[in-house]
């Protein structure tokens, strides 16, 4: 059973959902100088930061709570009248607090500070339970899958799906270690792509049993396909991605030629983009949906990434416009059969969107979202 999307709230370096989408349509990127860690210590110079003051601990929690508050207010349901749960996806959790304890000698946090459940229960007392999935860069997509299953199986009627991630010096050090020249921005699917950069951000959606909708929903989550490559620790695997895509369509009862837009994972790394382009080409040989990707505009927002793409997909549907891939100049040869949107937005009706999210460790989530009728 599909689930209705009652509300969606996001935070990125470009602002809220409306501002983020408008900036992407206009081809703007929220990249700036790296503001995490000590300048010059990491082989990373740029980042897509939310500019909200100093580098204190628990910013990811603050952004998540802000998005959750907005989404709950927008949803228009009385949570106390329904079995309500929350599922949160995150890659980095609140590991930044562990790092800052090194920096300023403050006490290490408790294990209970690393996840968001305590904060969520306090902010939304109506919650029956919260699940936290730390499934790297596809955690948001994994959270969507669990949320839909909970509603489908009658375990919950309303689910808040959250995603949030900041940056950590440890993850940045890994990015810096595997990059020769520091990237200045993310260029998804570009022949000269310089690599990935992290982006700060959070998102929260409220999804519910369609019979509960107080008014027309924003859209419907049809299905999420999940798979694990189980082949390599960091590199993508074509077979694993294809299984996730195939599962999404079979669970949704739809076919790839119905897709109007693909919000690709598009990290701008050497490995992701060609493999993802091949997977998309192979799974939709007869279709030509518009293909776009957000990371050139907002950076790699890790656990929130799939939910940022979903919010953008809903706006594509509402406005019949698809933003260009910000940062793309010269597409890679593997993408030659794909209709990558570049230089200017594409104006076409959008009813069905595919959202890709592939995480470290080969964890894949592909979600299909449909416009409200």
């Amino acid at each position, binding site marked *: 059973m599909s689930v209705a999307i009652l509300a969606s709230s996001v935070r990125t370096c470009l602002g809220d959902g409306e501002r983020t989408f408008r900036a992407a349509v206009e081809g703007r990127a929220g990249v700036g100088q790296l503001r995490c860690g*000590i300048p010059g*210590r*990491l*082989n*990373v110079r740029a980042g897509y930061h939310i500019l909200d003051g100093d580098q204190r601990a628990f910013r990811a929690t603050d952004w998540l709570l802000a998005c959750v508050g907005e989404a709950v207010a927008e949803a228009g349901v009385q949570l106390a009248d329904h079995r309500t749960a929350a599922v949160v996806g995150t890659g*980095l*959790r609140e*590991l930044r607090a*562990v*790092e800052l304890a*090194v*920096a300023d000698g403050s*006490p*290490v946090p*408790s*294990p*209970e500070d*690393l*996840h968001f*459940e305590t904060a969520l229960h306090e902010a939304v007392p109506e919650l029956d*339970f*919260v*699940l*936290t*999935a*730390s*499934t*790297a860069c596809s955690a948001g997509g*994994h959270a969507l*899958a669990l949320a839909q*299953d909970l509603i489908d*199986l009658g*375990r919950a009627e309303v689910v808040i799906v959250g995603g949030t991630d900041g940056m*950590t*010096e*440890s*993850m*940045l*050090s*890994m990015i*810096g*270690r*595997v990059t020769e020249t520091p990237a200045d921005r993310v260029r998804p699917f570009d022949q000269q792509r310089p690599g990935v950069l992290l982006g700060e951000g959070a998102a929260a959606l409220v999804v519910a049993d369609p019979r509960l909708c107080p008014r027309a929903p924003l859209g419907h989550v049809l299905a999420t396909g*999940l*798979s*694990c*490559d*189980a*082949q*390599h*620790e*960091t590199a993508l695997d074509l*077979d*694993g991605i294809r*299984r996730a895509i195939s599962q999404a369509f079979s669970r949704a009862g739809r076919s790839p030629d119905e897709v109007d837009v693909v919000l690709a994972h598009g990290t701008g790394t050497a490995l992701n983009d060609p493999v993802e382009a091949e997977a998309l080409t192979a799974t939709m040989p007869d279709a030509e949906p518009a293909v776009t990707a957000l990371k050139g505009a907002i950076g790699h927002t890790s656990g929130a990434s799939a939910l940022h793409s979903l919010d953008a997909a809903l706006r594509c549907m509402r406005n019949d416009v698809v933003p260009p891939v910000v940062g793309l100049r010269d597409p890679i040869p593997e993408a030659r059969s794909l209709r990558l949107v570049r230089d200017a937005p594409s104006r076409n009706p959008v009813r069905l969107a595919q959202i890709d999210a592939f*995480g*470290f*460790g*080969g*964890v894949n989530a592909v979600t299909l979202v449909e416009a409200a009728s």
Partner: protein
Amino acid sequence: MTAASGQRRTPDGDAVAITGWSAHVPGVAGDDLGPGLGSTPAEPADQAHRLLGRKGLRYRDEATRLALCAVHRLLGLEPGAPRRKGPPNADTAVVASCNLGNVQLVRELTRTVRESGGHAVSALEAPNASSNVVASTVALWFRWGGPNFLICSGDRSGFDALAVGALLLRAHRAEEVIVVGCEPADPVATEMHARHRPDIPLRAAAAAVRLQRAGDLPRRPFLLSQDLSGTEPVPGACGASGVLWLAVSAARSARGGPVIATDETLFEVCR
């Protein structure tokens, strides 16, 4: 088959059965926790090669090593037995529970970067920096290509991992789910745990269970005894606790067949 006293029945089609269980608590013989869990003290993480063999183990962190040991035991493999090769099995999902697996690494990387610069860190640590390394490594090691989750909700995460496993089965996203809970006990993890539970030191531990839909099983399973509800087989095991509780309960209850946990059992005891 008679049910133990105090149990309730649910339709078999809805119920989740536990069809395998294991424990790996360094220094503890599994049989001291429950019958059939192991006659000799379990190896510490730095001796994991005695159970797993050396191939592929070198850069694995403590929590991942313990998780691999627990799953190796779950599968009934002999020490040093070779691992399955071939394409991954997409019908088997992996749900891991772990909170403190990468905290020491994160702290060390930060210190190294600040004192010596980013060039001094080893790129080989990259997989270990990601919090889901336990779940993805178990999948990679044993070739399981189904849904893969890492649950990290603090003390309760083992129970949450079991709930997610049951959900994946009921949603028909997998034919079987391997749920593995683990925690390391390195100095940083120990210090963090002490902030939350100063009275009970962190204990390195791992446990694993196999879950399947009860309706898929060829014969009717036994019902889980509820006498063990609420006990903590190994105090201080944090994210490993929930899975360890279920593994030990199953070991103590089983009389040769799979043990069923009703939805009420999982949720009544765990929540």
